[in-house]
């Protein structure tokens, strides 16, 4: 799960790096690369749900000590919240960039 959060964070940074350079001279490939990075961030959030369930099941079955169980559960929850936050930021970034490019949320050009 931690690996997934790291990957999603790096994808978010990729999207930011592309976004800051997008302008009139940007190519279709630039836009496609940007959207692709955003899409991977969204997917990471979706993938984190079953991973969180697996993690909880594993912790409940494998840990008897209450303090360790609590800390491990908190850690897993923090990771899940990270992907939620990345998802929200990713959507906001995508909306901003598409608006700047003159594309509405429905996909048509304004």
């Amino acid at each position, binding site marked *: 799960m931690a*690996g997934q959060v*790291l*990957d999603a*964070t*790096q*994808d*978010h*940074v*990729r999207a930011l*790096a*592309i976004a*800051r*350079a997008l302008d009139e001279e940007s190519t279709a490939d*630039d836009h496609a*690369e940007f959207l692709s*990075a955003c899409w991977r961030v969204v997917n990471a959030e979706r993938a984190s749900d079953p991973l969180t369930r697996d993690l909880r099941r594993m912790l409940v079955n494998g840990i008897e000590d209450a303090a360790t169980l609590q800390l491990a559960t908190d850690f897993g929850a923090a990771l899940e919240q990270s992907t939620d936050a990345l998802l929200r930021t990713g959507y906001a970034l995508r909306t901003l960039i598409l608006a700047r490019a003159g594309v509405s949320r429905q996909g048509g050009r304004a």
Partner: protein
Amino acid sequence: MKPKVKPEMDRATVHLITAAAPLEAAATPEALGFKAYNLARMAAIGLNVPPAFVLGTGFCARPEAVTADLWRDALAHLELATGLGLGNARRPLLLSVRSGAPVSMPGMMETLFNIGLTDETLPGMVRQTGHPRLAWDAYRRLVSGFGEVVAGIDATAFEADLEAVRAGESERHLDFATLRDLTMRHLDTYRQHAGEPFPQNACAQLEAAITAVFHSWSSDKAKAYRALRGLSDEMGTAVTVQRMVFGDGGGLSGAGVGFTRNPIDGSPSPWVDFLFNAQGEDVVSGRRSAEGHEALAAIAPTVWTDLVEATQRLERHFGDMQDFEFTVQDGELFLLQTRDGKRTPQAAARIALDMADEGLIPIETARLRTAGLTDAALTTTGLASDDGASLTPVAQAATAASGVVSGEIAFDEARVRSRKAAGKSVILVRRDAETRDISALDLADGLLTQHGARTSHAAVVARQLGKVCLVGCEAMQIDETRGRMDLAGTSFQEGDLITLDGNAGLIYSGVARVRKLVPEALLARLKLLGEAV
């Protein structure tokens, strides 16, 4: 007598090293240098080597003739093979420019990394990797390395920049904002000392880097080294321009060093040290404790399978146990170097015998490789099991060289020297496994370190010197100023006696009885080999 060198024109060639490209007839160690020649051989047998081109040793005598016109086509091939472009703001190709002579001259010539990074291409690297820290770290290393090697700026100028920003922190812990600040300082230092700005044209960087690396063949230290070793000045160095791969980009990335078989006892399975999120230098420097192959196999099983397959292919092609370096970048395995591996006499015997049995080498070759191995050289030491009370180890560590030794703890060379002069057996105990301790290690009877990998340079030296060596004992804390150390809760003073068991990777308090271990089975196999028709 110095070896005969081929005519310069035969070696003034440009060679491409790309995936599965067959080895050209003109590709010889004399023309490509030893490392690049082996890279070309690895690529030719289908191993994943970062693409490269090599400017042959024949150009070394006249580096001023090596202009961009000579290598432009080769660079275009590299760009095609990687899908990246030198100076491209979106997908920048970053290159290493390495020296490489037909014979090993360790540390005597120059190498430059990250050529191609500029103010314009740096955002492209962030875009590719999603890792600003990696990008700024690469850029600041390029500016300081280029400044020292190409512009001749004293290293202390860049070290002062580092001291100014790090505020006591280790370099490894600096974040991207600090590294960005450091890069800006380095760019300013470069401008002040060189009298011109750091070159922001990637091709100009490459051209200057190639010239500088060729010139490093004629540096005072390189000339002195050749004079000492009786090496010909006419050989020249080749220059290898190769795509950079990064093991420190996070995720499924890392670097490792390995042997295709165990270099201590010769057993036929890969012996690998690996660090996630690291560069090769981190593994061999002796300052970090690497993990064995288990972590790699557990976290990246496909990479491990690829690596095992690569080791088998290396042995089939090279016909001997290999010492190799590799990098994993985003889950993709790249082989970076290979050469015949150094080994103990026991390993030399077992490997030669096993390889002959496996049909990898002819029996005659096995005989030649084992010819000088005496019974005494093959006899090792082990802990005596009949010495009364059973021993309880106080800690464990990674075995870098086998055998058993007991001795007094010493924390520095002066102490080793004085106690050896008094006729005592001494164990050098250090935080890191570093080659600067070589003279102390040469005197001492064993080496124990808190950090460091089995494949670090110092551990390799310890094996060659025949010293018992344990590394990466993370349960150990050393306090040199008070002359004491703590081993998993047990305190020791300098001068106290400990025993290192290099066979089992265990450390004992006090002196243990040792006995000679005569490898009867190995000797019997050697005898049979001598009698085989």
